């Protein structure tokens, strides 16, 4: 989305959403970044005010605003708590796209664009030739798998971060398209980059579980990234390409649900694909809507669709204490918090002990962790303390990105606590059977 026509449409949209913020400041209570820095530019109210300033006064310092917009975990704590119902994340995602697009514009085009905003009567005529400009600013995206995820994985530095798995998930398994078994259901499996490249064991646990319950699986060849790294850095061109690519892969075979074990992928497909699809053609929009409605977290599928329940356990046998971290993209974005806990309690080997602030952001925020490691780590430390104080031996969660951050924090503190995905815990109980 680097052409002016689209930028202008996005800005108009944005204006209507921006006025909803009444500057009450209640978001200061929940923003993890603000809690560390105390700077108004880091909290939703400040960022919204800056965007409002840009829209009203027409781009005084788009770069400065963009820099501040990037100091955000996109965790959604602010919108979940906002009395006015401001769609903060939608706004931030769109604003990143607009600002990145704008800054990529040639100075002459910038001037035209600015004129287009101040004088809406020119808007329509400009729309026409605006479309002719399409293509000029489109950066080539050669490697769908590489480009987007590269932002996520390149400068890992010397952190205590989980190394890339020696063998990626896509190298371990063959593409598959199995028939529904005893359950009568079939799922598409959206793997996601972090599981593919860092935690292939989670992918295996998913397949093992589906096999155990007689669920058919469609796993296409050359599956790709959901697009969030591109979108969150404002690159809607790469994002749209990835959405199209994924649609093409996953419409190749019929299935009942599209499942993921990555909270971020789930929330991206369910919320951001439709949000950004507004600019795509009607057919693609329909496909996006259909895909979004079929998508769910793996624990949601197992509990809501297969009816898996927690097991009542007898006596006080030897159990391992386990705590659970709610990924923002699952709880705040999609309201899924009960199902992963049910799944964990379906393994009789563990005792679930809740940590304090289980749904407080871990501080990962994708590329936020790379760009603002100090703030990210400070937020992560609080998560680590809560985990440690729960007295657990294992911490489970439902998002591999959170797992990266939590692993980093625990290992820096020298804690001997294992980090696992909820589906891995559940799959362990199947192995015992």
């Amino acid at each position, binding site marked *: 989305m680097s052409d002016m026509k689209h930028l202008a449409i996005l800005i108009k949209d944005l204006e209507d959403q921006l*006025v*909803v913020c*009444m*500057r*009450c*400041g*209640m978001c*200061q*209570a929940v923003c993890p970044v603000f809690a560390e820095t*105390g*700077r*108004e*530019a880091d909290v939703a*109210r*400040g960022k919204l*005010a*800056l965007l409002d*300033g840009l829209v009203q006064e027409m781009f*005084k*310092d788009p770069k*400065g*605003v963009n*820099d*501040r917009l990037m100091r955000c975990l996109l965790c959604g704590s602010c919108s979940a708590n906002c*009395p*006015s*119902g401001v769609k903060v994340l939608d706004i931030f995602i769109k604003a990143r796209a607009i600002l990145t697009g704008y800054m990529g514009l040639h100075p002459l085009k910038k001037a035209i664009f600015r004129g287009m905003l101040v004088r809406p009567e020119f808007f329509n005529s400009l729309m026409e030739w605006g479309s002719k400009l399409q293509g000029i600013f489109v950066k080539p995206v050669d490697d769908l798998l590489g480009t987007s995820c590269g932002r996520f994985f390149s400068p890992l530095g010397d952190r205590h971060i989980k190394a890339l798995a020696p063998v990626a998930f896509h190298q371990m398994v063959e593409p598959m398209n199995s028939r529904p078994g005893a359950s009568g259901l079939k799922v598409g499996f959206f793997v996601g980059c972090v599981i593919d490249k860092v935690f292939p064991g989670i992918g295996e646990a998913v397949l093992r579980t589906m096999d155990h319950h007689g669920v058919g699986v469609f796993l296409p060849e050359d599956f790709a990234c959901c697009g969030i790294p591109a979108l969150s850095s404002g690159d809607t061109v790469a994002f749209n390409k990835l959405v199209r690519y994924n649609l093409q892969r996953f419409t190749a075979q019929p299935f009942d649900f599209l499942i993921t074990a990555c909270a971020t992928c789930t929330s991206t497909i369910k919320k951001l694909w439709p949000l950004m699809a507004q600019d795509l053609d009607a057919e693609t929009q329909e496909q996006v809507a259909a895909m979004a409605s079929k998508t769910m977290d793996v624990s949601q599928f197992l509990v809501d669709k297969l009816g898996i329940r927690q097991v009542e356990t007898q006596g006080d046998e030897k159990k391992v204490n386990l705590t659970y971290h709610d990924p923002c993209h699952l709880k705040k974005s999609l309201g899924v918090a009960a199902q992963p806990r049910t799944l964990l309690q379906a393994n009789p080997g563990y005792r679930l002990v809740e940590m304090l602030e289980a749904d407080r952001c871990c501080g990962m925020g994708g590329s936020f962790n790379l760009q603002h490691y100090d703030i990210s780590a400070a937020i992560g430390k609080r998560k680590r303390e809560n985990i440690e104080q729960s007295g657990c031996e294992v911490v489970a969660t439902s998002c591999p990105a959170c797992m990266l951050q939590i692993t980093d924090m625990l290992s820096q503190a020298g804690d001997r606590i294992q980090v696992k995905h909820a589906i891995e815990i559940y799959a362990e109980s199947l192995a015992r059977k």
Partner: protein
Amino acid sequence: MKALIKEFEGVLGKDNVFQDETDRMTYSYDAAVLDPALPSLVLRPTSSEALGKVVGLCNEYGLPLTVRGAGTNLSGGTIPKAGGVVVLTNALNRIIEINEEDLYAVVEPGVVTAKFAAAVEAKGLFYPPDPGSQAVSTLGGNVAENAGGLRGLRYGVTRDYVMALEFFDVNGEVVKTGARTVKCVTGYNLGGLLVGSEGTLGVFDKITLKLIPMPPARKAMMAIFDDINKASETVAAIIAHRIVPVTLEFMDNFTIRAVEDFSHAGLPVDAAALLLIEVDGHPVQVEEDAEKVESLCRQMGAMSIRVAQDAAERDKVWEARRAALSALSRVKPTTVLEDATVPRSKIPVMIRAIEEIAKEFNLTIGTFGHAGDGNLHPTILTDRRNHEEWERVEKAIDAIFDRALALGGTLSGEHGIGMAKSRFLEKETSRATILYSRRIKAALDPKNILNPGKIIGE
């Protein structure tokens, strides 16, 4: 300016001096629906000494200074003078002491109200003032606005809990007033002057707050009325029977419907009004009061009464009240929360007046608020971008003030005067009052640098 910035950087450290325009823009507004103004610098002291030095330096250089806590006030109190300095207190956020023997606490001004209340509660004590913004508001801001809350009827407002203050005068010198004792007549009652002064007379550094024992029992209920008058007469009857509930809240039909749309809490959408009532104290007393309130409500014609049987039901009652502002603010883009307050007995007249004003100016107004205190929040729902409607909104606000004053009321129960209402002040008081206040201000702040333009104009 350059030399001055160097000096500030020396006192505060480079990281705590924000010069960038983009950063400064985020300190140009607060929760009031007013135009923003850009400060020339934003400073974030991390110690008392630094705060005092900053105040002294601003005075020396004649720089207008606006202190900012959480920036949640609704009257423009933290919108700086263009080109002035904003001083943040959110790095001064230590609870210095909670004294369980003498029942007081000493805090820095940037401590968040709800965090303080929780720390106090953890020791079995109680700090009652609970403004709706308490999850983020600072105690310094509460004292400077004399903030109220839902418990004002029985427990009073912030002023009633300020035992002592240490504040910086305009030269950055420490002034002390009050004591940690229940009684104190040492010197002028400067605290009385400073509480509610909105940063115009001094900058709070250490605040000593009174604590009370936590009441052991409480009971909440919801009374439903088919007639607004019956509801407001019930308020008067409860007080006349010498029962002082902790909380006695009112919601009109528009607000009830908005809340129900928003939270589906099972509120009666065709009720004309609701009263939400809570009594507290010793268990026996609570039972007795609750029964009395219940039978009074019936006598006064309540259609039905729901008494909360347990903590969960009690939470439900208050959830409905807490949702009021959220629910209303979702109806239209701009929410103007007014605060006119009248003597309790005039509540029925005032509610009718607000309805008339809504009709006259063809506006949407939902009314809820602290009926027990006579403090209503008529909330105008509008879209500021619609200039024609906005003009009607401004006229309606004037009309609300006029009616409140005519009923012997006041411009603001708890949201402060700031810039939003300073031009109405003379209407309620007198020319002489303004001049008297300005003389005090001129004597204490000769260069007029402390939050200039607030309360008494310029």
